[in-house]
């Protein structure tokens, strides 16, 4: 027994010592680190984004030339774990970061990356807090304010409704961020917001919110929320025989592939997204085909954004003449100089960046018809 205990403690000490020693640096490949929720409640976004990036990495490596070594770390959608994941990547010798996928962890990690001078390009963390006061953090997705304002303008310009209801999650940074700018822009638009109702992460029954919107006579309900609660709202509206238009933002993307959800319920839902998997341009078709072959599902906007993130980094590396032999800091400074000057054509649109890290690309409105996105 005693021997056993000694043995066990010996093994544990060795295991600990091994993990404390930094991993040996492999030569000849650019090290791109990825941080996102691969487990936990937000895992669906992180896994999609990781798979999108992996396809881009495979394609780039198949081209020959600069090779990429890709390392994905889980952050469980938690700021503390995300900083841990970031430190882990730093130990690995990361040169560029593709991440984080979700907003709150990204705010924590971007502050660290700013101090350490590591260039970060986030595929989908959309809050302005992510890029605020940091010259080396850029976004592939729209910022929350841009989405809220664009949605209000779209609804106003296309005269989709005169009475609009809003249901949003007031415990979620993403949702409140979009809601706030939507309301600001809505004041300038020819429609009236007749009702605003809220829910929190724990809400599983939306009958109160949906019936309040019905009673207020809303013709269109704006849902600046993720697709899981949105699917429940659609179900509840269906059971109340409440026929109105639902208008979502990029968090709604993924609803069609959700397990246990009847796509018929989403018929007629409109959403603002930079990516639609049914687009016919060569790049999108090739990406969607590869993604389906490899993972057996239709890629979401998260996968597309993350795919673009890797390619944008690759393009900026080539434009600036940097190679994997340069240090992380040299690469960071070169990226900061290159990104605002370059134009990147990706599957989520043609992108240009401002020096503050925001992207400009055109949002596409799509409508779900017969279970697929149809561009408007």
């Amino acid at each position, binding site marked *: *027994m005693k021997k056993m205990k000694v043995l066990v403690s010996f093994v544990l000490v060795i295991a*600990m010592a091994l993990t404390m020693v930094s991993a040996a640096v492999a030569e000849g490949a650019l090290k791109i680190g990825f941080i996102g929720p691969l487990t936990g409640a937000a895992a669906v976004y992180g896994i999609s984004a990781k798979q999108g990036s992996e396809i881009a990495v495979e394609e780039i490596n198949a081209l020959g030339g600069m090779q990429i070594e890709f390392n994905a770390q889980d952050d469980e959608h*938690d700021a503390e774990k995300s900083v*841990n994941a970031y*430190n*882990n990547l730093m130990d690995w010798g990361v040169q560029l970061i593709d991440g984080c996928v979700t907003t*709150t962890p990204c705010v*924590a990690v971007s502050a660290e990356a700013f101090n350490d001078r590591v260039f970060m390009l986030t595929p989908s963390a959309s809050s302005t807090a992510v890029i*605020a006061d940091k010259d080396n953090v850029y976004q592939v997705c729209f910022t929350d304010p841009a989405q809220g304002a664009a949605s209000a303008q779209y609804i106003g310009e296309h005269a989709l409704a005169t009475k609009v209801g809003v249901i949003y*999650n007031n415990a979620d940074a993403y949702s409140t961020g979009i809601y706030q700018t939507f309301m600001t822009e809505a004041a300038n638009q020819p429609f009236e917001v007749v009702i605003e109702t809220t829910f929190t992460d724990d809400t599983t029954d939306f009958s109160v919110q949906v019936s309040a919107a019905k009673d207020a006579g809303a013709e269109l309900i704006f849902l600046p929320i993720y697709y899981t609660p949105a699917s429940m709202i659609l179900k509840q509206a269906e059971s109340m025989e409440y026929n109105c238009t639902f208008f979502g933002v990029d968090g709604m993307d993924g609803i069609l592939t959700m397990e246990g959800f009847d796509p018929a319920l989403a018929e007629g839902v409109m959403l603002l997204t930079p990516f639609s998997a049914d687009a016919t341009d060569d790049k999108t078709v090739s990406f969607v085909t590869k993604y389906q072959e490899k993972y057996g599902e239709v890629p979401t906007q998260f996968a597309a954004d993350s795919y673009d993130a890797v390619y944008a980094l690759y393009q900026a590396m080539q434009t600036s003449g940097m190679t994997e032999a340069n240090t992380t800091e040299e690469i960071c400074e070169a990226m900061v100089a290159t990104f605002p000057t370059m134009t990147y054509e990706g599957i989520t649109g043609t992108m240009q960046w401002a020096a503050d890290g925001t992207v400009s690309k055109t949002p596409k409105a799509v409508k779900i018809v017969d279970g697929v996105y149809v561009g408007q």
Partner: protein
Amino acid sequence: MKKKTSKEFINNAVTYLLVIAAFLIVNTMKEAGMLTRSLTGQLIPICAYIVMAISLNLVVGISGELSLGHAGFMSVGAFTGAVVTASMAAAIPDPTVRMIMAMIIGGIAAGIMGVIVGVPVLRLQGDYLAIVTLAFGEIIRNVINCLYVSMDEGRLFISFNDPSLPGKLLINGPQGALGISKISTFVMGFALIIFTLIVVLNLMNSRNGRAMMALRDNRIAAESVGIGVTKYKLMAFVTASVLAGMAGVLYAMNYSTITAGKFKFDTSILVLVFVVLGGIGNIRGSIIAAAILTILPELLRSFNDYRMLVYAIVLILVMLATNNEHLKQWGSAFKRRLFSRHKAMKGGAEE
């Protein structure tokens, strides 16, 4: 009696020495650059979790009440600390002084919450504290999700559900506290652990502490000799809340952002797991369990997708191992043998 006191003294001395030795070793390694970033980055959260575990142990182990909302107090401390440090940035430029101020104010704020929750509930018998603290943690989280605090020209503005405040937002509803200046250091974390140990160990070995334990072991007997139930339970509960608030300040000042969602029920349970695995009522055990269980998920990163599964299995194994009769017998036999050898040597010297 005297012998018992000296045994307690040795026991406490071992705890202090363990913490100090661990700090010295880790700090030297850190200064020498021998630690990985991954481990260095976790030092302050580990300190915060250790303080959380010790303070929860005071409630669960010493006063015998179950608290399921300990993270709520941490949250109160964290957000108070964030506002205090941001608003005092101009008045007190020295980060150490500012941090100490934030810890005191954060601790007091959490302590007030502790009184509010504790006074009505600790008068009741049964598991009411568990239910109320569970609710308290959720209430705090939802209140902070609606809370907006901003600062403009030295004045603080507070509102609920309305972000249109003048000046710079310090707490922005569900986005939490943004732009925190990171002023926590490992030395401060260590100082807070030592402070917590002094408070908790002295309280345990005091007259008040013995009254708490008497109440825990047999409430009726304790009451019959004139020990006031509410007073002592409240003393333990409020002390634990204050310490949790301070841990919250330490934790928050280590990240540039902090959200209310972090201090969910899950975090309360995590701290309770530290206490249970370390041994209820065993302060040293809480320290070790908190440190190991915080590092463990990071050490398991190489398992990728199976990480959380392995973590759960390790928890179960530890639980089985610590409750295994054979191991326990072996442990006590080992202790006895050491002790008897010690005695024999002592006897030999006397002869």
